[in-house]
């Protein structure tokens, strides 16, 4: 296998590098500078005038930063490795005058060249002041949130409040999975989106809303339907998954994937005036299948489109999902692993029930044999 260092070494053979001194000498006619680090890294200071485009969004951002591919572009990161890899990608995009800053911003700094704070970065203490006031979060917890990665599956009724609160909380990277486009009937509850964006991809709308709320969050969009063939690749690398899917096949597939990847999942679901919430901590607590081994028959499990839902109900459950995700990321409090929370909005009642691992569970009985990832039909039978 070619590991990271092999890739970086080979990239540096193929690209152009500039030194900090060469870049500094261009003060009066600077090239377009692009910082490819994550927002939380850029928040510690950037080279004056640099555009921010973390590697995850670089390809999408470049046409706005430099529409003309003959523009002279210098990429930098911390020490010059990621920017070398990124320079290769820009060459593939057709950029003809790309260089990477050798030694990255670290060399720039030790040579005493100027650093500036990116717009808004200085507001970190103010932005998270209410978190910093909490002994359970504080500065260390806030830093940890900034280094965390959460995947929100479904940018709908549940995913909207969950993603909004996680972005507002300063979770460093949010992945959003949704293949759908916005319909006017979504807007009664899917508060990530707005009327002007009807017909747009939900993931693009989500990225725009979340970035406007908190530009220091990197949003990774996955405009794709989760299937057995892609779920492991999409979910791997995230610390927590928030399940805001809208069907049993997707819920059971996500449960299976989480067991394989050993990533905790915060499941939420809603219908009419009711909602359910549980945390799956793989192999340490019950999985979704331990509690619901099979889905109800279709007549007892209508979608929200069929049975209706009060818009604020997913608002409640999705917000609780954000609470559970933060607790999991920070290791604070008692999560809802091993418990099922049921909210009845009409009755004005919340119940929390104890559940337990099922020793005969089809999905999680044997930690050494995680479930094979297969697509399920509407009755959650494997589709071959």
């Amino acid at each position, binding site marked *: 296998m070619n590991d990271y260092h092999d890739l970086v070494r080979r990239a540096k053979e193929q690209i152009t590098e500039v030194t900090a001194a060469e870049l500094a000498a261009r003060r009066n006619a600077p090239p377009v500078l692009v910082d490819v680090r994550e927002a939380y890294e850029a928040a510690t200071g950037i080279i004056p005038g640099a555009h921010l485009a973390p590697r995850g969004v670089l390809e999408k951002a470049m046409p706005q930063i430099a529409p003309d591919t003959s523009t002279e572009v210098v990429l930098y990161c911390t020490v010059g490795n990621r920017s070398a890899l990124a320079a290769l990608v820009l060459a593939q995009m057709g950029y003809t005058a790309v260089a990477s800053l050798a030694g990255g911003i670290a060399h720039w700094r030790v040579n005493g060249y100027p650093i500036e704070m990116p717009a808004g970065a200085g507001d970190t203490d103010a932005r998270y002041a209410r978190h910093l006031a909490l002994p359970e979060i504080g500065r260390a917890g806030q830093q940890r949130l900034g280094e965390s990665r959460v995947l929100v599956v479904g940018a709908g009724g549940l995913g909207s409040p969950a993603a909004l609160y996680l972005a507002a909380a300063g979770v460093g990277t949010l992945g959003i999975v949704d293949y759908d486009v916005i319909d006017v009937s979504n807007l009664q509850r899917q508060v990530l989106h707005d009327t002007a964006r009807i017909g747009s991809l939900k993931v693009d709308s989500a990225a725009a809303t979340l970035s406007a709320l908190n530009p220091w969050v990197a949003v990774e969009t996955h405009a794709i339907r989760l299937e057995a063939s892609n779920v492991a690749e999409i979910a791997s690398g995230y610390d927590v998954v928030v399940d805001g899917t809208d*069907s049993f096949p997707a*819920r059971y597939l996500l449960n299976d994937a989480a067991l394989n990847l050993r990533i905790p999942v915060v499941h939420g679901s809603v219908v009419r005036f009711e909602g359910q919430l549980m945390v799956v901590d793989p192999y340490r607590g019950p999985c979704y299948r331990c509690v*619901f081994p099979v*889905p109800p028959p279709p007549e*007892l499990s*209508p979608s929200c489109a069929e049975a209706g839902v009060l818009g604020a109900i997913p608002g409640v459950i999705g917000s609780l999902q954000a609470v559970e995700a933060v607790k999991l990321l920070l290791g604070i409090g008692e999560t809802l692993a091993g418990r099922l929370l049921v909210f009845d909005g009409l009755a004005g009642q919340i119940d929390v029930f104890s559940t337990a691992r099922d020793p005969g569970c089809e999905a999680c009985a044997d930690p050494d044999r995680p479930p094979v990832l297969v697509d399920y039909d509407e009755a959650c039978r494997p589709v071959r």
Partner: protein
Amino acid sequence: MPTIRIPTLLRPAVGGVARVEAEGATIGEVLAGAAALHPEFGDLVFESDGSLKRFLAVFLGGRDVRHLRGLDTPVPPGAEIIILPAAAGGAR
């Protein structure tokens, strides 16, 4: 007499009400008592062999009865039993 709390989606089987009272000293007896009053409810919760339908979670005193004694779990007089199918919606 024990009470069974009925979620909205299952209420059509019990004449639309949110709670059903039924006699019985165990989970199985109380559910069977409710089924005697509402035959549709019986079809909903029991398999033909008399076991509980697998898609339903049943809770007594905040605990899943599958981890107590299942249908044989004793039910104190006046206790509340909650039956619950999984919900699917993510509000697409």
